[in-house]
C-alpha cells in the first residue's frame, strides 16, 4: 500500500467520511426514531437526537410486538429468522462440501453430467421455481415449519462450485501422501480436506448466513402462522396498517434489531472471512 502525504491523504479521508455518512445516516435515523414517541414522529416533529423512550420501545418490541398488525413479539421473529438462517448456512455448507468432494475426488458414471446439472441450477433461484417448490413443500406438510423454511433453500450450486474450485487447488500429492499413510476416503476428507477448508467455510458461512437472514419472499409464502413469522416479513407487515397509525418506533426498533445478527456474524468472523477470500497458501 502506498503511503500518501499531506493534502492527498486528507482528500482520501474526506471521501471516506462522506461515504460513511451516506451509509450510516439512515441507520442513525432508524435508531433515533426507535427511541421517540410515535405521536411525535406522526406529526413530523422527530428530532435528530435520540429520544427518551429507548427501554420502553425496545421492551415492547422484543417481548410484546405491535399492538395491531403483527401480534407477535419481535424476539420470537428473531428466533425464527436465526434458526432459518443457521439451518440454511450450515446445511448449504455441509451439502455442497460433500458433493464437491464427490465430484472432484471420485470417478463415477455420469460424473460430469451431474456436475453440469448442479451447475445449471445456478440459473434457477427460488423465485423462478417458486410454484413447484411451494407445491412440494405443501404436499410434504412442511408449511409453517423450520424444515419448510430452510430445506428448499439448502442445495447450493454456488457453494458447490466454490468448494470444487478450492479442492482442485489442493495438491494431488496430499491425497497420495494420505493414501500411503493409510487414510481412506473418509479419513482424508475429515483429517485433511475439512481442516484445509476451514477459512473457506467461514467465509461462506458469513455470506450464506446473511443470505438466509435476508430471505423475504419464501418465508412470506410458506408461513401463515404468526409464531412462524421471520423478522423480514414482520417488518413489512408492521408498516402496512389499514385502520391505525403505523407504530414507527417499533418498526424502527425491529429494523435495528434485524441488523444486529448479521453485524455480529461479520464482526466475529471477519478475520477468518478475509483470510478465506485472499488466502493462497495451501
Amino acid at each position, binding site marked *: 500500500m502506498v503511503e500518501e502525504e499531506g493534502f492527498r491523504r486528507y482528500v482520501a479521508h474526506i471521501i471516506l467520511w462522506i461515504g460513511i455518512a451516506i451509509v450510516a445516516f439512515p441507520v442513525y435515523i432508524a435508531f433515533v426514531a426507535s427511541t421517540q414517541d410515535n405521536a411525535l414522529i406522526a406529526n413530523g416533529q422527530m428530532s435528530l437526537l435520540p429520544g427518551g423512550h429507548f427501554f420502553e420501545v425496545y421492551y415492547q418490541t422484543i417481548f410484546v410486538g405491535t399492538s395491531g398488525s403483527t401480534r407477535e413479539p419481535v424476539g420470537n421473529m428473531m428466533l425464527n429468522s436465526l434458526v432459518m438462517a443457521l439451518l440454511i448456512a450450515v446445511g448449504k455448507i455441509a451439502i455442497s462440501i460433500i458433493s464437491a468432494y464427490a465430484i472432484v475426488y471420485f470417478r463415477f458414471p455420469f460424473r460430469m453430467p451431474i456436475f453440469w446439472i448442479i451447475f445449471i441450477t445456478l440459473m434457477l433461484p427460488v423465485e423462478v421455481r417458486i410454484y413447484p417448490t411451494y407445491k412440494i413443500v405443501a404436499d410434504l406438510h412442511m408449511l409453517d415449519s423450520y424444515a419448510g423454511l430452510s430445506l428448499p433453500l439448502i442445495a447450493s450450486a454456488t457453494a458447490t462450485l466454490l468448494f470444487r474450485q478450492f479442492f482442485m487447488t489442493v495438491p494431488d500429492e496430499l491425497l497420495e501422501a494420505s493414501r*500411503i*499413510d493409510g487414510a481412506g476416503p473418509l479419513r482424508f476428507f475429515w483429517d*485433511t480436506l475439512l481442516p484445509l477448508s*476451514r477459512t473457506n467455510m467461514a467465509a461462506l458461512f458469513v455470506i450464506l448466513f446473511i443470505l438466509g437472514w435476508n430471505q423475504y419472499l419464501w418465508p412470506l409464502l410458506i408461513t401463515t402462522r404468526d409464531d412462524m413469522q421471520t423478522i423480514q416479513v414482520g417488518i413489512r407487515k408492521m408498516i402496512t396498517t389499514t385502520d391505525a397509525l403505523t407504530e414507527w418506533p417499533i418498526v424502527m426498533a425491529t429494523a435495528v434489531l434485524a441488523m444486529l445478527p448479521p453485524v455480529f456474524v461479520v464482526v466475529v468472523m471477519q478475520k477468518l472471512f478475509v483470510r478465506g477470500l485472499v488466502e493462497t497458501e495451501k
Partner: protein
Amino acid sequence: MANVTLRNVRKTYPGGFEAIKGVNVDVGDGQFCVLVGPSGCGKSTLLRMVAGLETVTGGEIDIGGRIVNQIEPADRDIAMVFQNYALYPHMSVFNNMAYGLRNRGMKEAEVKSRVDEAARVLELTSMLERKPRQLSGGQRQRVAMGRAIVRQPKVFLFDEPLSNLDAKLRIAMRVEIRKLQRRLNTTSIYVTHDQLEAMTLADVLVVMNGGQVEQVGNPLAIYEKPATTFVASFIGAPPMNLMSIRADEIKSQLGSTNAGILGIRPEDFVITDQTPAGGVTLPLTVEAIERVGAETFVYGTRAQDEQRIAANPGELPPGEVIVRIPGSEAPPIGEKIRVAATRQKLHLFSGDGRTRIEA
C-alpha cells in the same frame, strides 16, 4: 528389508499413450536404486507404479516376494517422499510424522517414541510443534523424510525430493539422504533428472529414455562403458562429444568396420600435436573458454577442410567439441590447436547409436 523386482512392467494410458514400454529392473535388498532420465521418460510414472499411485497395465511388480500389482499403497509397506514434500499444512511436524502410524492403529506411546527417534536423527526435535509453513525448505524436506522413516517400511521411494532446494542445500541433503539410507539399510528407489545426483547416490543406476530402460548398472561402470549414445550424452557433464564416422579409412584405422559413431569424453582429450597409436587427433579452432577454477572447458570447432569426422546432430552443435583440461591455463580464443585421445578412451557405437561396439 526387501528386494524390489519389476518384470516386464508396462503402462498405457487410456488415451493410448504408452508411458512405460516393458521395464525389467531388479533392486537388491538394501540397495539404493536411482532412476534417471530426461523429463517425460517415464521415471516418475514407474516410481508411482511401485508406490501404487498408478495402475499397472502389464507385467509384475514384486516387493519382498509379493506381487503388489493389486495392493493398495498403504498395504505395500512403502514410504514415499514427494517432490513438493506434501506435508499436511494444518498439522504440526509431530502430527505429520505420526499420522501414518496412528492410521495403522499404533499405540500412542510407540508413536511418540518412533517420532521422537526420527526427529532426533533428522535434528527436528526443537521443531516438533511447528506447522510446515513455519519451516524452511530444507526443514520441510527433513520432515518429509521423517514421515517416511518413522514407518520403518520395506522400501523408500523418492520422487525428485531435492529439486525444490537451492544448489547448496541440495548437495548437503544429498549426502544426508545417502548416509541415512546406509544407516537404515532400507531398499530405496530414487527418481531424479540430475545426472550428478544419480551418479553420487546410486548403487544401481537405471538410465531411462522414452519409457524404456537404456542401461542398468553400477554408476561408474555406466560412465566408463555407456551402452548407447543416449546414455553417453546423458551421463557425465559436460556431455560426451559424439561424432559420426564418415570415411571408411577412419573405420579401418579404428579397427572397427561397423562403427558409425565415435564418442570421446571432454576430459579424455589432451592438447598435443602427436597422434597416439591407434588414437585420434582433431584439429580445432578455439571458440570459447570457460574457466571454473580447478578446470577449464575449451569449446572448439573442427576446421572445415580438415574435417575427417563429420558432426553428429546430437548434444553438440555440428562440428563443436568440448575439451576439459585441468587448471586455468588455456589457449587464446581463435587459436588453432590439435587435441588427441588414446585408443582406450574412444567409445564406438553403431550408426543408429543403439549399440556399443567393443573393439
